[in-house]
């Protein structure tokens, strides 16, 4: 191919990468120095040795362990549930024949464009009546199955399973659920893994709904961050240390699976 990139392309990309990593690095810098670091005229270029002191203060100021545990529970449950139910529905839309299928699929896609965030008030009233506000149920239930997930799995499975395989299984007397479990689930694994990752990240980073549904005593990580910042005086070493701590789990996931994540975003773009 004739489109070989020159120095300009590499230079611009390097600038972008520095810009992408810069703010995160800055928060590591501030989070690992003593709190007067922000007032220095010339900021340090290397992380300091106070990260663990700051981290300890984070855990003393708010119940960060509980926040981490809550976030882990909520994200894991939602991601797993989304993968299970969306694979099931996506398989039905991709491979089973039933009346109204195409219309229903269009409906699923259309709901993607609905700003459901604007339904928070009745959602809050509902949860309060069920007695779920303040519990993790309130945060988890709305995200147990998503339109994006259904569409994503459908797009993947439509090409991933040959129809003959399903017909053969049916002739052999497999029940529908066994076909799903023994044929569709193994075939769906790569797409399901990406969906799991995505949902985990989305739920982990969510702020608006958990802030409304959860009290200060039962926070997720994002809500704990807000609590740390909301005092009269903001101690940025503390706050940005917590910002780093809250990002570390996702960063670890990203390092391990970033390749799949990139592939997933790009596949979703072409097929969606």
């Amino acid at each position: 191919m004739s489109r070989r990139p020159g120095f300009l392309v590499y230079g611009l990309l390097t600038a972008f990468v520095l810009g992408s990593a810069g703010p995160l690095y800055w928060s590591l810098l501030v989070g690992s120095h003593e709190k007067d670091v922000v007032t220095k005229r010339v900021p340090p270029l290397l992380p300091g040795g106070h990260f663990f002191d700051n981290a300890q203060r984070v855990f003393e100021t708010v119940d960060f362990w509980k926040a981490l545990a809550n976030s882990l529970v909520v994200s894991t449950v939602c991601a797993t549930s989304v993968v299970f139910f969306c694979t099931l529905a996506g398989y039905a839309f991709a491979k089973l024949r039933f009346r109204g299928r195409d219309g229903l699929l269009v409906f699923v896609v259309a709901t993607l464009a609905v700003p459901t965030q604007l339904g928070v008030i009745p959602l809050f009233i509902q949860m309060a009546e069920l007695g779920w506000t303040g519990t993790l149920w309130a945060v988890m239930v709305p995200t147990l199955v998503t339109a994006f997930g259904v569409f994503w799995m459908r797009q993947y499975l439509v090409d991933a399973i040959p129809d003959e395989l399903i017909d053969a299984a049916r002739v052999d007397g497999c029940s529908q659920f066994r076909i799903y479990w023994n044929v569709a689930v193994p075939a769906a694994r790569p797409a399901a893994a990406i969906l799991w990752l995505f949902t985990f990240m989305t739920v982990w980073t969510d702020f608006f709904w958990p802030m409304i549904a959860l009290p200060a005593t039962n926070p997720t990580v994002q809500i704990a961050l807000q609590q740390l910042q909301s005092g009269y005086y903001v101690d940025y070493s503390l706050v940005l240390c917590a910002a780093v701590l809250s990002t570390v789990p996702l960063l670890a996931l990203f390092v391990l699976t970033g390749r799949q994540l990139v592939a997933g975003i790009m596949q979703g773009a072409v097929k969606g």
Partner: protein
Amino acid sequence: MTSRPVLTPAGDTASSPAGVTPLSPLPDEPLRLTFRQRLSRWDVRFAPYLYISPFFLLFLVVGMFPLVFTGWVSVHEWSLIGGKGEFVGLDNYRAVFEDRYFWRALRNTVSIFLLSSIPQVLIALLLAGLLDTTLRGRTFWRMSILLPFVVAPAAVALIFGNLFGDRYGLINSALDVVGIDAIAWHVNTLASHVAIASMVNWRWTGYNALILLAAMQAVPRDLYESASIDGAGRVRQFFSITVPMVKPTLIFVIITSTIGGLQIFTEARLFDNVGLGGSDRQWQTVTLYLWELGWRLRNLGMASAVAWLLFVFICLVALLNLYLSRRIAGGVGRRVTR
């Protein structure tokens, strides 16, 4: 969307397990379905509905119903503590329209939205163009630009709140070095909008660039070859081939960033430690205004009116956007076919 026939009657598929009967080892049995066969027929017919029902049930309960019920709440006096009060008709809407903070929030939202989505789409397009070359270490570059995506909006807001600090912020220090006076990011309206928009841009540009990159890689390479033979330069090729070819994806990116951009909340809420959008609500977005009405002033009725208004507004802007981006991108497309 599918190539499969649409209206296959369910009975057709249901006949396939029944079609097993002639092949079964007992062909002399009377033509009567056993319990198992009947079960299997029901299974084939109703299992698909069972499988898709979780999504529809949940959407009904936590998506559709709340949106509709918001309209019901909005015509009542409805307190966060006391619950439902009297029917008040359109009074809540009138109160919203008479509140100058509503108009300010609307202005802020539109301003932050424009400052975030326009540069974001343009930079993402450029970035995707840079990545759509025969780079060394492709995966490294792609992963690097996606890095901001793993940082939660709340953390982004805290980090940028510090970077854009009025007194000790890194950005003001940098401006000082260049000889520009410190900017009051948390006081000045436009400056605060720029700061908040930059958080959104930082987190989403790489993500959108990857989506556009995927579309760009689907463009047939021989188009570029014939264009270079015709003497078109790199830049000309980008604007005359690449951009028109990725038009559908571009519209997708624009629409999704519209729907998200008009609901910005976290970045504005955490930009300072008070969380209400500034002393004079300089950067209070409509969603933040909604939250303040509902959960600070405990007026769920009025907050619901705001939710409905924002809903209508988002729909209108999304449609306008669709129309505009089709026209603009369509114009470029026509130039190419000539």
